[in-house]
């Protein structure tokens, strides 16, 4: 949870594995790294067992690169595909029981604020649509109503991908899946609307076919959660196995879905805009000058 844990124990440095040495010497800890520099520094995420070509992995990779202070960040997840990758990153990962990730993150966030005071310690929940909108729905919504200061990111693959293709609350109406052969009978849940009603300070939808936008959205959400209140990002991360998307067409599918029903949207409260412009220098959210009144 600080730069102190990403260094060698004296005398042991030459015995450490290459990946660890690279991480300490050339990782992003304590530096300002961006998505555009990727490929020239050692990434926090490491080898993982997720499927080849998985869009969720791409999103997780970009999200972890985008964390403003990775050395001061804890991720929280739950059962589902995502944790297979998130747990392979060189930042602490807490595995909540199925559905309680936002409850765990609430306690963690409060505890870190008590322990470290003003030093920012970011808690980021990364969980799938099943863990967040179905099984963990109550805890997710309650954490937002309580105005818990952490970021919630939904990895929305619109299916229970890890257990064989059951429909989730986030599956689209009419969608036929292996374990939903008659098609889903209900509409996709409006988690974005609920996040706004529940009082989230920042709500955004994003698709991983625009890495710089993913970076920008994650940075803003984490920074707002530090100061203002809960933030929510809903990311379309297709399941190429359950939706039978060829791996080399995954990004094409992302683009089609983005154009169709997952357009980029961003909602900020006034307080969130003030925080971004005042504390973190986001010029686009500076209050616009009022035009001078002239007498004719």
């Amino acid at each position, binding site marked *: 949870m600080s730069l102190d844990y990403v260094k060698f124990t004296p005398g042991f440095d030459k015995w450490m594995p*290459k*990946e660890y040495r*690279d991480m300490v*010497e*050339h990782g992003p800890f304590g530096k300002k790294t961006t*998505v*555009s*520099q*990727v*490929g*020239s*520094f*050692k*990434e*926090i*995420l*490491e*080898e*993982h067992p*997720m499927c*080849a*070509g*998985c*869009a969720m*992995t*791409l999103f997780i*990779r*970009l999200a972890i690169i985008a964390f403003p202070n990775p050395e001061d960040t804890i991720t929280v997840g739950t059962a589902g595909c995502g944790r297979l990758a998130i747990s392979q990153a060189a930042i602490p990962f807490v595995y909540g029981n199925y559905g309680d990730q936002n409850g765990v993150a609430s306690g963690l966030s409060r505890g870190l604020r008590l322990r470290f005071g003003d030093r920012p310690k970011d808690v980021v929940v990364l969980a799938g649509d099943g863990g967040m909108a179905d099984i963990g729905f109550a805890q997710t919504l309650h954490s937002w109503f309580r105005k818990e200061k952490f970021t919630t990111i939904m990895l929305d693959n619109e299916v229970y991908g890890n257990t064989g293709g059951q429909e989730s609350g986030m599956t689209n109406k009419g969608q036929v899946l292996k374990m939903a052969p008659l098609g889903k009978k209900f509409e996709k849940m409006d988690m974005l609307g609920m996040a706004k009603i529940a009082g989230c300070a920042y709500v955004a939808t994003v698709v991983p*076919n625009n*890495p710089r936008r993913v970076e920008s959205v994650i940075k803003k959400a984490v920074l707002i959660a530090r100061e203002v209140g809960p933030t929510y990002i809903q990311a379309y991360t297709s399941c190429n196995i359950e939706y039978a998307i060829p*791996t*080399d*067409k*995954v*990004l*094409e599918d992302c683009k089609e879905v983005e154009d169709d029903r997952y357009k980029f949207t961003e909602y900020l409260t006034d307080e969130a805009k003030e925080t971004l412009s005042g504390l973190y220098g986001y010029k686009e959210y500076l209050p616009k000058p009022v035009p001078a009144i002239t007498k004719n």
Partner: protein
Amino acid sequence: MYLVANISVDICAATSCKLCTQFCPEANTILYNDEAGKEKGLRYGSAYVSVDRCKGCAQCVWVCDNMAKHNAIKMEMIDLIGDQALTENIHYGEKSTTATLANPFPG
């Protein structure tokens, strides 16, 4: 045997978009060498693949062909592409990486 991505230095170092490094779902797999093309008199460096980590999804091929329109990446059989970058031979520098190439299937 199986397919892995292979990036043409000649094409990549003439254009240098770095899109494949950003769109690869695998971490620390498509890396960038600032000097790779300059050695050949080309303008930029080149991306390269750490083939022991490539899962062969070919997303980079789609990105290079359709987004960048450079057609610099091809999927090739790992035992037929000769000397390639492997994770254990990659050296990170201040702003770039270099790789000592080796045959993934010696002998």
